[in-house]
């Protein structure tokens, strides 16, 4: 087979599919190649145990860019977002903190813990929304190269500078703090309730090898206020049918635009001629030629595996090797016979329909991180759980439930033993931790799937198990993502582009990297 395409996209994850859809809509002939039998990459639904469908990796949606939903008309292609209402945090002293989207209720709930915090919560929300408005346009721009002499690129930098200058003093102050401080330091200025700070700061560490007290973690707090579903600021949700439904909707939109999608088509090499990418070779030996190759897999796979260091400039290789993955999280998926019963708020109820966060105190979170720093998984980890079957009964047999547990920290590099040896021990730790709050959990578990960072690497092609294709730390963001000088979706190889989470603005089911890359590519060729 040797048909010629305009663009071949490596990887059928959500970014690869978004990228393909936009290219095809601009009239390009596009082929997407996916290694696995299912589309979606880390945004995938699979029936792991008969009758139980899991959002295997990524499990909630909030950051999917509204312009993508609109432009690709995703609701028409089957995307339906169901609300995920609230976050319930059980505490070891028998109390709990339960925040919901209803602001008035949340305020009353927080007032149970601290009246001052209840007042501050409103102010905090307003300030965050201001900040989110400031950051939003940055998400959809191609990062400028600050070292270039090209005045056109400086226009973008100047645009950012002026935007910042126009903020009120108060907002400038907040913005600087958000970009640089630790989540806990930032929240300390607003709140006094430990469990509230612990739970809020948790969003700052997801997917990074940082603790809630590490500088740079405050920024992600903003993301909670940027989640836009159907235009409603600050809400999180499930996709009906699991996270894979998002990928399927994007896939449908792509196909409709004329994209050809092939699964079970693992790629061995990117074909080069005279330093240009001219196509790919599949593992079965098939060669596929294209004008442009667009890779949505991470830089390690793209460059080290599919191209080879010998074809790349030395400096670029050095930068790629310095690019930090350092996966820090695992996932435990549980098939349950019933609902967990929390000591602090017994019985079934609305609190189970949202996120359940095991983050009882700031120290608890920080100690979990401390262990990981020295190469152990946390003995008492931070766990973010959801039970999507309560909102979307289609994912489990009647009366049964699926529970998805995101677990941090699980460092990719263990000081002792291997993840293959420690997998079940890790799973037990997670179940034990949950059982401290919901003792009946152990009797409910029919089956469990434990995904370690090593599994994320092997099964989903995420180097070192990093769910964002590389850490979201300041030195790896914006014009430094993934490598200095190569943040414009281009690469040192002509006609090879990057469009995955390893490019600006990074990971999460956002789709922005795929869209930005497509727009850049179309501008270039």
């Amino acid at each position, binding site marked *: 087979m040797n048909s010629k395409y305009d663009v071949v996209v490596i990887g059928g994850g959500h970014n690869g599919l978004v990228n393909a859809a936009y290219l095809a809509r601009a009239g390009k002939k596009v082929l997407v190649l996916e290694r696995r039998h299912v589309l979606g990459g880390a945004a995938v639904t699979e029936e792991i145990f008969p009758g139980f469908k899991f959002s295997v990796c990524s499990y909630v949606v909030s950051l999917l860019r509204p312009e993508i939903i609109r432009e690709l008309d995703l609701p028409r292609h089957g995307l339906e977002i169901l609300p995920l209402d609230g976050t319930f945090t059980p505490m070891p002293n028998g109390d709990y903190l339960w925040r919901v989207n209803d602001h008035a209720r949340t305020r009353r709930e927080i007032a149970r813990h601290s009246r001052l915090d209840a007042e501050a919560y409103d102010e905090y929300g307003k300030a965050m929304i201001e900040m989110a408005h400031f950051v939003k346009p940055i998400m959809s721009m191609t990062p400028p190269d600050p070292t270039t002499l090209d005045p056109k690129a400086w226009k973008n930098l100047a645009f950012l500078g002026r935007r*910042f200058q126009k903020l009120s003093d108060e907002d400038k102050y907040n913005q600087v703090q958000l970009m640089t401080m630790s989540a806990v330091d930032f929240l300390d200025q607003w709140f006094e309730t430990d469990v509230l700070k612990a739970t809020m700061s948790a969003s700052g560490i997801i997917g990074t090898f940082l603790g809630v007290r590490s500088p740079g973690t405050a920024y992600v707090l903003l993301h909670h206020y940027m989640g836009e579903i159907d235009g409603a600021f600050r809400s999180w949700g499930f996709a009906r049918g699991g996270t894979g439904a998002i990928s399927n909707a994007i896939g449908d939109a792509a196909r409709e635009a004329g994209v050809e999608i092939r699964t079970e088509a693992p790629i061995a090499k990117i074909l080069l001629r005279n330093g240009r990418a001219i196509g790919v070779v599949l593992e079965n030996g098939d060669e596929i030629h294209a004008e442009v190759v667009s890779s949505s897999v991470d830089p390690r796979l793209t460059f080290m595996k599919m191209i080879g260091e010998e074809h790349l400039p030395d400096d670029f290789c050095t930068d790629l090797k310095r690019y930090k993955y350092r996966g820090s999280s695992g996932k435990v998926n549980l098939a349950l016979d019933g609902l967990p019963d929390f000591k602090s708020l017994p019985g079934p109820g609305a609190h189970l329909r949202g996120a359940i966060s095991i983050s009882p105190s700031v120290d608890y979170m920080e100690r979990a991180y401390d262990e990981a720093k020295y190469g152990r998984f946390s003995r008492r980890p931070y766990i973010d759980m959801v039970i999507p079957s309560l909102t979307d009964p289609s994912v489990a047999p009647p009366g049964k439930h699926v529970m998805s547990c995101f677990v941090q920290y699980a460092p990719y590099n263990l000081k002792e033993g291997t993840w293959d040896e420690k997998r079940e021990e890790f799973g037990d730790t997670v179940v034990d931790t949950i059982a401290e709050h919901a003792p009946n959990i152990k009797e409910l578990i029919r089956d469990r799937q434990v995904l370690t960072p090593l599994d994320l690497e092997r099964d989903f092609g995420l180097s070192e198990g990093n769910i964002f294709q590389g850490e979201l730390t300041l030195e790896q963001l914006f014009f430094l993502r993934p490598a200095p000088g190569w943040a414009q979706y281009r690469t040192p190889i002509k006609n090879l582009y990057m469009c995955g989470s390893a490019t600006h603005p990074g990971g999460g089911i956002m789709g922005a990297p795929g869209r930005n890359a497509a727009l850049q590519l179309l501008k270039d060729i």
Partner: protein
Amino acid sequence: MTYDVTIIGAGHNGLVAACYLAKSGLKTLVLERRELVGGGAVTEELHPGFRCSTLDHAAGPLSSQIIEDLNLARHGLEMITPEARVLALSPDGSHCCIYNNVAPTINEIEKFSANDASSYPEFANSFSRIGRVLAPLLSMTPPSIDQPTPGDLWQLGKVGLAFRGLGKKDEYRLLRWGPMAVADLVSEWFETELLRATVAARGIHGAFAGPWSAGTSLGLLWQAAMDGSAIAPAAYPKGGMGGFTQALTNAAKAAGVEIRTSASVSQISGADGDKPTVVLDGGEEIEARVVVSNADPRTTFLNLVDPIDLEPNFLLKMRNFRAPGVVAKINLALSGLPAFSGVNSSEATSKLSGRIHIGPEIDYLERAFDASKYGEFSPEPYLDINIPSLGDASLAPSGKHVMSVHVQFAPYKLREGDWTTRAEEFANNVFVKLEAYAPGIRDLIVAAKVITPLDLEQEFGLSGGHIHHGEQTLDQFFTFRPLIGWAQYRTPLKRLYLCGAGTHPGGGVTGLPGANAAREIARDFKDRKI
């Protein structure tokens, strides 16, 4: 009699500011709470015949411009700059000594790793190049973001051009390194754990941060800006750090500055009007046209100024200015030179004359920090040691020595007990560590002075016991130090200025905050704004 300027605090920055202001013709008074001048840069008798730098034990390094402008050499400043910068000790008895010169340093590093030895020159060069670009930032007033003046833009333009001159590779290095964890930065250069930890230590010196904390690389860049090397030198004045502030005092007096010691300020009033007054503890009131505070920002605004004079919003931000102290100091009078394992006596005097670093691994430093997060002092602390009597015989009787130990981490707020009751336990813990590296050292101790973070606050007036007057993280840096909108040494009160380490370019004995502040104050006088 009315003064033009009253400066609160005769620390080195207060004295530097006083010198410059007096030289520009302003009648200047400096008020010092303690009975001696110097603030954090003082030498005191620790035991009869033994004198030691009480707090800071190495210069920041001093700005050569200030030394020249104020003619400090003529006023008695004599610098001692040992060839060795730092001697890094490993618990297995091996060591690595880093010198001012690259060549002997390479020999030392080669004992551990040929790779590291070959990376070292490029490491030293990169930091020296980047340091040169950053250096002008130190002596400039951070520009206003809201309304940059033509002068601000000119200054920034110059820095921008210098940045351009670095070339793409170094430009990106600089951008990447700023926010990075210092542990990551050093592992990009070196494979030897001892070397990594020794270099990384500069990034966490005095900070509530471990080497894995993001942003700690900034400390290295700043150090490089000051003297062209990422590794801090052991330079100190003859007579200890007090030698520097003594020279400054001489220069100040020669310029006509009046200095009063044992004059503790309890209040600053009327600074928003035309007649600011400082009130001393005894009730005495001193009027001046301008008040300049060398005290840290929190002390200045939360303790000295009447809160009614400040907007609640400003006060709130000031309360949120982070200054969690983590440093304690132990000064020792020793009956002889301690013998460090693995350092033979023939090379001891030269190798021990720089700083001595205990904190052999990144993980060691990080664990030391971990404790402070939970309100505990480090079971295994990071120690930065100086034996100044090796280079300056005037500090101790012949054959005897003084040793100055900077101990991290010692959090200001202990979760259990308090510093008054736990100081002894704390010191003992440090002695155990010293004994492990220098067996027999405990028997040499003639006298010891332990200065806890609480002492730093109560005796030296450092809010929270923070030696840099506040964390030097990205959000409290340059145009954001101490607060965004107030980084130009001016304050919301028209006739109150800041000149201490809580302003740009921050802590360390450089004298630059004082010099920069004096420039702005003199300008406002000249422009008849005050």
